């Protein structure tokens, strides 16, 4: 055992920090080493003297003198700097650092992702040309009527304006239009570009909700892609499909219904023709029990035509292509007419 080890062992022995076996070994060493024993005894004597001495007593009147000094001191306050320092010291810095790092990462990642908060607008080349023609006075009236129709579901784009064409196309308006309920003055009897704008001035194209009658999900028909889904519609002439704004399935009782449809189209300022040939409709077209009819009417007449179509037969809107809702002159409706 070296001198250092012996000294350490000796002090551990004095402090009672040795285990029983170590105590026995050390006491054995003590019995064999008189110098070590003498050193132990001298230290024990010194420690004994220290312990009997103990803490000294403060002088008499010390407490009173201290309190007298403190009495003239204002009560100490924690300064705002100390409070601030303590606040930051008590913060869980690791958690804070992780939160800051996560925020930075989110911000950086967010800059590289497309903005999904709003519907993506079509590239200019794919967007339909904005209507250059002003709609007729009926459009405005229809719009106002749409706003006033009881029970009408709120449109996703109708923050301050309701687009009558889209409302009608969505099947939200089915009854006759009551212009008298409007409390909004008509805008000089016409519809302008502003009427065809969605929220924040964006074009309504691509924002149309198609999910009202089990059609394609919302947003799935943005752009110029046709959204015909029913098997029957798939047989319709491709050009008709592409041009059609709305497709209907109409079940009629007899072939005379074709004349009614033609008359209906004319009453709405348009024309109904054979969907494939483009020829004028005749009752013979329904000899096969089914015919595709193309109806071209001014957009402003859509609401009225939509309502009147049910008087001809059991009409059901099967799809809608919002890109074609705003033709320059007319919009095209595709009617899949079948005999009952």
């Amino acid at each position: 055992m070296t001198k250092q080890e012996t000294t350490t062992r000796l002090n551990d022995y004095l402090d009672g920090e040795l285990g029983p076996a170590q105590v026995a070994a050390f006491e054995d060493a003590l019995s064999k080493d008189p110098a070590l024993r003498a050193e132990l005894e001298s230290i024990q004597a010194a420690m004994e003297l220290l312990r009997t001495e103990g803490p000294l007593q403060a002088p008499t009147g010390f407490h009173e003198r201290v309190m007298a000094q403190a009495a003239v001191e204002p009560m100490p306050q924690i300064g705002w700097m100390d409070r601030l320092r303590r606040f930051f010291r008590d913060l869980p810095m690791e958690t804070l650092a992780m939160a800051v790092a996560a925020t930075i990462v989110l911000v950086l990642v967010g800059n590289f992702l497309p903005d999904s908060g709003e519907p993506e607008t079509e590239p200019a080349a794919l967007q339909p040309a904005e209507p250059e023609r002003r709609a007729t006075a009926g459009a405005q009236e229809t719009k106002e009527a749409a706003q006033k129709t009881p029970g009408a579901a709120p449109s996703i784009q109708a923050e301050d304006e309701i687009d009558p064409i889209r409302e009608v196309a969505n099947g939200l308006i089915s009854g006759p239009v009551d212009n008298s309920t409007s409390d909004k003055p008509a805008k000089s009897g016409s519809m302008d570009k502003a009427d065809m704008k969605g929220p924040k001035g964006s074009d309504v194209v691509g924002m149309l909700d198609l999910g009202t009658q089990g059609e394609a999900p919302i947003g799935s028909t943005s752009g110029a892609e046709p959204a015909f889904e029913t098997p029957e519609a798939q047989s319709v002439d491709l050009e008709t499909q592409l041009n059609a704004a709305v497709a209907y399935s109409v079940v009629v009782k007899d072939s005379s219904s074709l004349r009614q449809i033609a008359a209906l189209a004319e009453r709405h300022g348009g024309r109904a023709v054979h969907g494939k040939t483009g020829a004028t409709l005749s009752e013979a077209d329904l000899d096969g029990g089914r015919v595709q009819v193309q109806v071209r009417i001014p957009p402003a007449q859509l609401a009225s035509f939509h309502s009147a179509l049910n008087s001809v037969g059991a009409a059901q809107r099967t799809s809608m292509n919002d890109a074609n809702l705003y033709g320059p002159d007319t919009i095209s409706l595709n009617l899949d007419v079948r005999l009952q």
Partner: protein
Amino acid sequence: MFALLFAMVHRPTDEELVQRFKGGDRNAYSELVRRYQNRIFSVCMRWLKGDREIAEEVSQDVFLALFRALPGFRGDAKLSTWVYRVAINHCKNRQTYRHRRAHGRHDSIDGIQQEDDAPKRQLADDNAPGTDALVHQLEARTLLQEALDQLDDEQRQMIVLRDIEDLSYEEISKLLDLPRGTVKSRLHRARHELAKKLGRRLNLADVV
């Protein structure tokens, strides 16, 4: 009645007193002074080589500093550790000041050093005629203080904190910001040195 009895029996902890003081209760500070005055004065006395007047002055400074600093006490360590740390810092500062101004008391050190070859003194025998315990105690205290004064600051602080104030190794380690092993080895050396100094001054057989 029960509340009064509880108040008489219940001894508030240091932390409770600190909280009360932070709330503006000066009586809490008074209680803390009463609780620590002997220990602080004792440390100052030992550190400042038995100069009673200076020790009292420094002790008062320590408590005044505590009064001003208590609101900032965070409670990370025991109050006693913190109080001792303040006291030691004050003692060190005062000692540095004294050395710089050459006002330190070196008489006893010089005296002892000169007396190294003097014959050993013997503590008065309690049972001897004409002596009493008080004389014995005063003489022992003087010898102990003289021996402590001969130690260097590092050794003296170890002896004071461990063997007089009875702090644990862990408390001393925190107080002085030293590893436990360092505290132990310094204490070992300090004890050995103190025993040597005391052995020259008295007959240890009278103590043991």
